[in-house]
């Protein structure tokens, strides 16, 4: 994936020079290992700030909401699906965008890697499919496939579904992936076990809303947890309010979530936030044969009605 960077720069420079876009949204090098920072470049000279590696897990579609400029945007598979969702939901217009597609082999999970070492990781170098980790008194080389973000390990849409430019050959999609093993495990629990499971899952939550704010779907002008007239949800860290926030947010993402993993990546407390959204993603697939963000041609299941929609839940 490292080879993509020259191509990203070349395309971005050309788009800016030719005046096709006002800005390109991509990543610049982070100041700590395994982090890059979303950024924009507006001049051909600044294009050299752009980087690409396996630390670009934040979903850039989040930065498109309601923008008015003409924008070039670097998009891996999941970003492209959220761009589709954004276009369908009128958060950006297709003709405002030049989508610089990046075939992706997954992003590495910094939480997972940090947890593998007792002391601080000082330097991380990526070469092909290997990740070399260095800190004071230790050095270890890991296979990238072993330290992918959970959502990337299960990803079946690594190639951009929509793009105007492409920075490299399409990559082979992962086949025969069992995407929902973890969801099935929870589904098979008794109500009491489920309750306990979700209580434990959320016990560390500090209501910082990093999950919500890293999510391209969460663009409501006022989130329901921020409404004050009336106030629907308490603002303390009372477990009931915390649960309400997470459950409702997940439901708001039903049929729209692309499992990009930004929420989980953003969480400062390491909560597996995707466990909420994945169940709804699975339901949408099973009930409506729907995967979010795959096409501009169809309306998502929750804003359409078909007479043959499943209705088994009505007793």
């Amino acid at each position: 994936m490292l080879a993509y960077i020259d191509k990203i720069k070349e395309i971005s420079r050309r788009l800016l020079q030719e005046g096709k876009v006002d800005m390109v949204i991509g990543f610049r090098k982070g100041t700590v290992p395994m982090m890059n920072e979303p950024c924009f470049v507006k001049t051909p000279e600044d294009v050299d700030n752009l980087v690409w590696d396996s630390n670009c897990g934040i979903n850039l579609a989040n930065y498109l909401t309601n923008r008015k400029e003409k924008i070039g945007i670097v998009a891996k598979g999941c970003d492209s699906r959220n761009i589709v969702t954004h276009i369908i939901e009128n958060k950006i217009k297709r003709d405002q965008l030049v989508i610089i597609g990046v075939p992706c082999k997954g992003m590495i999970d910094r939480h997972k890697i940090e947890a593998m070492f007792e002391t601080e990781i000082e330097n991380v170098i990526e070469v092909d499919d290997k990740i070399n980790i260095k800190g004071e008194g230790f050095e270890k080389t890991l296979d990238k496939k072993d330290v992918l973000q959970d959502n990337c390990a299960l990803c079946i849409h690594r190639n951009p579904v929509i793009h105007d430019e492409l920075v490299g050959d399409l990559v082979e999609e992962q086949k025969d992936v069992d995407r929902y093993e973890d969801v099935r495990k929870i589904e098979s629990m008794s109500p009491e076990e489920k309750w306990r499971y979700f209580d434990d899952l959320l016990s560390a939550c500090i209501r910082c809303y990093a999950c919500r704010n890293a999510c391209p779907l969460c663009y409501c002008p006022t989130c329901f947890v921020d409404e004050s007239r009336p106030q629907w949800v308490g603002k303390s860290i009372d477990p009931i309010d915390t649960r309400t926030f997470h459950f409702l947010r997940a439901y708001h993402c039903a049929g729209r979530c692309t499992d990009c993993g930004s929420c989980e990546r953003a969480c400062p407390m390491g909560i597996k936030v995707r466990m909420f959204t994945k169940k709804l993603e699975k339901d949408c697939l099973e009930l409506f044969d729907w995967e979010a963000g795959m096409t501009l041609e169809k309306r998502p299941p929750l804003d359409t009605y078909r007479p043959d929609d499943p209705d088994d839940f009505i007793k």
Partner: protein
Amino acid sequence: MKVITIHKEDWAGGLERLYDSFRLFGPVKQDEFHNFRELVKGELPDLNLLNTRLSAKSIIYPQSEKMFEFTLDENRDDHHILKEIHKDYSPRAVIGIRPCDVRAFLLVKANFDTPEYKDPYWIKSYESTTFVGYACNTPCSTCFCTTAGCGPFHEQGLDLLLVDAGDHYFAKIITEKGENFLTAAGWSSEADSDTACDKIETMRQAAEAKITTRIATDKLKDKNTTELFEAPFWEDVAFACINCGTCTYLCPTCWCFDIQDETFGLSGIRMRNWDSCMYPLFTLHGSGHNPRDTKMQRIRQRFMHKLKYYVDKYEDGIQCVGCGRCIRHCPVNIDIRKVCDLMNGFET
């Protein structure tokens, strides 16, 4: 300066005795990181850590703190009367807190304990606490305490400085509170003060040498506030920001709160919760107007508050102790060191 040697084999026994006179708080590893919480008798603080994920501020200033209770039941004489909720201000001790987090309380004190205003909850909590600081032999690459008015062995605000010296700890007594803590634990083996202080000094220098990131803050005070406020770099600084509360909630020096009433049927409580200048509700006026309506305005507020307004108002340096939590855990890698450099180096 009196220094006590605590042999590690005496550690658990001393702590056991301390439970008789203190509520003990310490770092505990849960899942993949450490956080502070109250220890139960027999439990040891886990001192094998770099630092806790959340700062220690919630020990003094909980994220959600009940202040008053009330009833709306008009059949009762005391309806609609706020009654203070009883809280436990019995002596407590925080063990294993890093010097940066302790210094942070002093910065926060500038807000909660002033000649004009006194926050009773914060002050009572603070005063009931003994701070057993844990000198930092392993600072991280994101630590910049030495240029943020602090340091890995910084003693300001501490009652006791605990230094890990292999098979034993040195406990350097800084206040009477610290001395009482040692007495309650039964740790009394006095070290030769000169030798111990020399050793501690050597370790301090070694730890400080490991801190390689530095920030310059010398010019902040002389900058024109309005020019800094209108500086062109804010758009670039703010772009990546998702306006979550990670930086403010993990920060040991962020003190903002919001007061809320919550009712359940006819009974209710008044509580205060941490607030964050990153949130859209933060300065939303009753009129619907919000002077900080965009994320750029909000992130600018955070950095201007820490690095300019505080500097001007309190004349005690920046409102930051250099713990680096906001740098390590910002989901989009916004780095206060970079912003500080931009502000300090800004020329119109």
